[in-house]
């Protein structure tokens, strides 16, 4: 029979598990005596809980306990002074609407759900504000510097330029909402030994957070997270709800499972914060940029500060002697945001790349020519060369593929009935990182190789990438290589974030493989075998069932001499109906310039996922709050619109696929973030090219086209 899976070596190593249901996600673990937690949440936006009546809930069938600030188990970190991070169940303070105020634990999920509805809280309400724009406009409202101001050359030089663009761009709150709901299973056993099944982008981070809060040794805590049903950044921290579950387990001495609801996904696990940005650009009549000013304001919370790299790109993406940036965060009475795919850069790129397009239009230049004309040879911000950058080649390849020559520089030129066609382009960029990680390799006489590291796979295909690295180096077939992850007892690795996993863990895999090879070569030499002998023969000859090695790997000093980034160019064709305001993305070409591509299929999947997320950011996604109540209005998947298949055209992905000589031994730079960064601007620019309407507030819904 034809093997439907593993048609070639580039297939996902866990694909068959995922599509047959064998992959086990955190919520699927059955522990003896497992109980079920359901959170009770605040219904006011700010204030103090004056009473919490849990009697009816406690008497309800199957209920084991209700844990709240009234009977909190000890969490030494929370006994200390200071307010951050949020101390779940430690005070009666309510910081935002939908904040967990108690957890009801019962012997079934349904009973816990019912009992949770019986808990009654009363509050002393306080005035609140959840409206970021209102806080921004209010001189009395608190504002904090999010990043030191940056200045190169003359401040606000754009104001004296021949040609000027000055515009304001607005992004709403976006939510990650991966398919898999958030939660945790916590099992606190005697002698302070804790096992959790988590949904996390970092098993070591989860382990350390729990250790810190409860002041127990990290070795006491076992974190398992083999499969994660999507994270997009929201699983980069251990949320209060997870600590609440650990507390509940400690309190009742039984394992507790908590899976939050889709609605709670809007309030408990962060979001991409709303942002308002101003970009000023100045250029000569010939099209040379002479000034860039990027000022950003990001929404944050009152109980924890959140910052991200919104204004980074303006500092180095274009050749320009005069650049200044400022980034301010504005706390409001909402749950704290968190990084969401392409974190601040995706926010910033929407503004900057829209403004670049506006400038090209003001100059009557093709936006692609304008970008090429202002493409820097070196990084002016850090005053260093780029480790590798093939952006001009990327522009060319993408332009050919999408048929850029069909584009007319004059907006509204391509018309067919009510439909107008337009083309847009934009750039995405993100730091190419490499951190420190350890990997253990076990090479066995049965011909197999096992690699282990406490990293995660939130979906990109970590195991597949690592397997392919080892496959190339060791010449072992992929089906003989196993990469184990998602287990805190494995050799330490950083959290999966910032597009650094392949670079960081992959380098350690590389080092482990090289070390295993040299051990085999030594053994071969010592046993008078040919240097090219197969490792199986060498191990057998030496009567060794296996050999193993653990390596810690990190970048050398050389990298400090370079500026390292991954780049993406997004080309988009849209069709806009000028009667109904409907926008259809009709073609996509995304070009990735991120060094050597190790795993072509999963890399392509990353780019596709980024483009789909980008369509959502550009056209559909917006979490709406009624600021009179501080509550979300569209907190479900019927009303919070992520793109569906019908919104997504064929996506063509092109990789430059040239190794970066500096970043790591594989020459591979990260690409999870760049897949999304910049995409929304490409759509907005294409909409402008189609219609002459410049939409500066996302998402670009039909009402905005009609009003534009």
């Amino acid at each position, binding site marked *: 029979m034809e093997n439907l899976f593993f048609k070639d070596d580039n297939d996902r190593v866990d694909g068959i598990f995922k599509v047959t249901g064998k992959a086990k996600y955190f919520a699927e673990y059955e522990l003896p005596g497992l109980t079920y937690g359901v959170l009770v949440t605040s219904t006011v936006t700010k204030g103090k809980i004056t009473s919490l009546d849990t009697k009816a809930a406690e008497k309800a069938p199957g209920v084991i306990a209700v844990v709240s600030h009234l009977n909190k188990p000890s969490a030494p970190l929370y006994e200390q002074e200071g307010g951050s991070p949020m101390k779940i169940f430690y005070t009666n303070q309510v910081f935002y609407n939908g904040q967990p105020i108690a957890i009801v634990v019962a012997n079934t999920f349904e009973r816990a759900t*019912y009992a949770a509805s019986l808990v009654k809280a009363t509050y002393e309400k306080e005035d609140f504000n959840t409206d970021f724009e209102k806080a921004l406009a209010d001189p009395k409202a608190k504002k904090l510097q999010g990043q030191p101001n940056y200045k190169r050359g003359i401040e606000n030089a754009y104001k004296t330029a021949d040609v000027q663009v000055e515009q304001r761009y607005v992004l709403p709150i976006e939510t990650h909402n991966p398919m898999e709901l958030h939660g945790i299973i916590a099992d606190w056993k005697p002698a302070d030994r804790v096992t959790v099944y988590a949904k996390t982008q970092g098993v070591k981070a989860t382990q350390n957070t729990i250790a810190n809060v409860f002041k127990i040794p990290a070795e006491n805590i076992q974190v398992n997270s083999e499969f994660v049903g999507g994270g997009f950044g929201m699983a980069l921290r251990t949320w209060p709800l997870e600590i609440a579950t650990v507390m509940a387990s400690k309190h009742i001495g039984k394992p507790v499972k908590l899976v939050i609801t889709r609605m709670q996904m809007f309030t408990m696990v962060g979001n991409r914060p709303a942002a308002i940005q101003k970009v000023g650009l100045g250029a000569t009549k010939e099209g040379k940029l002479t000034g860039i000013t990027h000022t950003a304001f990001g929404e944050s919370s009152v109980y924890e500060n959140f910052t991200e790299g919104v204004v980074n790109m303006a500092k180095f993406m274009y050749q320009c002697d005069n650049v200044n940036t400022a980034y301010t965060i504005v706390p409001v009475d909402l749950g704290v945001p968190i990084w969401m795919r392409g974190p601040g850069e995706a926010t910033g790129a929407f503004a900057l790349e829209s403004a670049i397009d506006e400038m090209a239009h003001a100059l009557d230049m093709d936006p692609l020519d304008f970008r090429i004309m202002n493409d820097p040879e070196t990084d002016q911000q850090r005053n260093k060369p780029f480790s590798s950058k093939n952006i001009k080649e990327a522009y060319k390849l993408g332009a050919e593929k999408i048929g850029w020559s069909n584009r007319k520089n004059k907006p509204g030129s391509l018309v067919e009935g009510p439909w107008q066609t337009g083309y847009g382009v934009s750039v995405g960029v993100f730091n190419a990182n490499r951190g420190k990680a350890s990997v253990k390799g076990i090479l066995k006489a049965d011909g197999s190789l096992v690699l282990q590291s406490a990293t995660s796979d939130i979906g990109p295909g970590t195991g597949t990438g690592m397997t392919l690295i080892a496959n190339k180096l060791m010449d072992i077939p992929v089906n003989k290589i196993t990469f184990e992850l998602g287990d805190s007892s494995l050799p330490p690795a950083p959290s999966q974030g910032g597009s650094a996993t392949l670079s960081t863990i992959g380098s350690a895999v590389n080092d482990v493989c090289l070390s295993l090879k040299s051990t085999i070569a030594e053994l071969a030499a010592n046993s008078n075998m040919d240097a090219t002998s197969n490792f199986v023969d060498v191990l057998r000859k030496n009567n060794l069932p296996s050999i193993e090695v653990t390596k810690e790997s990190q970048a050398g000093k050389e990298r400090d001499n370079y500026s390292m980034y991954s780049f993406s160019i997004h080309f988009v064709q849209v069709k806009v109906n000028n009667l109904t305001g409907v926008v259809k993305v009709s073609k996509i070409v995304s070009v990735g310039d991120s060094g050597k591509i190790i795993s072509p299929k999963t890399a392509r999947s990353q780019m596709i996922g980024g483009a789909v997320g980008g369509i959502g950011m550009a*056209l559909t996604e917006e979490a709406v709050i*009624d600021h009179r*109540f501080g509550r979300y209005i569209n907190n479900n998947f019927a009303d919070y619109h992520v*793109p569906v298949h019908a919104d997504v055209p064929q996506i063509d992905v092109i990789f430059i696929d040239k190794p970066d000589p500096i970043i790591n031994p594989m020459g591979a730079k990260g690409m999870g973030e760049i897949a999304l960064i910049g995409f929304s601007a490409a759509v907005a620019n294409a909409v402008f090219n189609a219609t002459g309407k410049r939409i500066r507030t996302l998402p670009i819904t039909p009402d905005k086209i009609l009003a534009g």
Partner: protein
Amino acid sequence: MINFQYLRTTSAKSAIALLLKDKRSKFIAGGTNLIDLMKRGVLAPEKLIDINHVPLKQIQQIGDKIHIGALASNSAVADHPLIKEKLPLLSMALQAGASAQLRNVATVGGNMLQKTRCGYFYDTEMPCNKRQPGTGCGAIEGFNRMHAIFGTSPQCIAVHPSDMCIALAALDALVVIANAKTERKIAFADFHRLPGDTPHLDHNLKPDELIIRVEIPVNALNKNVHYLKIRDRASYAFALVSVAAAFEMRDNKINTIRLAMGGVAHKPWRLTAAENFLKGKEANVQNFEEAAKLAMIGAKGFGENDFKLKLAPNAIIEALTLAKTKA
């Protein structure tokens, strides 16, 4: 969600009898709306009477009417050869609704009785006159982008969310309803209500009644037909505005015409003035524009939904134009 009893029945009579026995019980058909409402705490029936096994799934022509059983699934109706051939407008409207998975279980009766998608209605912590009369309308001064522009009242500005019902209103359907003793028929146009001072009432079905079927007169509206749905994404979203347009040409003039709009009112909104204007006229853009203008008389926005004042007439023109191009 509270505990509830689940009962299953196999005849219309016993279903109604069970309903009469206990005021706090409810029929469940596909459950695609009811279960959501129960999860959100908006409804809390003590008994669910499963009517899926009541034999009301037939789709057939009897005389000059097409009968569709109340328990026929949305996809069964949409895909039925009889409907595709003779009532393509209905098929198109159904296809535009929800998702394939939902349409496979959602029923005709349930679709008619689905509740508004107003976010305030679904959140028990918010004011809403429909859910809890007297608490005020959260939407009037709040997030009302999805809300009505016709037939509103100071009590409620919600819209009826169904696509199917827009086509049924356009097609002059009749609703056949039974109680323990008798059957009655209501014109589709009279089935749903405007909010007025009774925003908690969506329709004129009495609490002891079961929808048996809908009947649609066979017509000549099977060629120049279009259901246009404008929404925030290409599929699986409720209408911002939708238009059901169907006309029959004779001697280059519009002989019969039906126009109804969704996403604009508390009930399917029939565009009678526009229909009357277009009757006997040529099917051209000037006439479509004039008709769209007439259709908009009396429309009123509430802020965030003001764009519908522009979108709705445009959608009427676009729907008529697309209907015209059908060969």
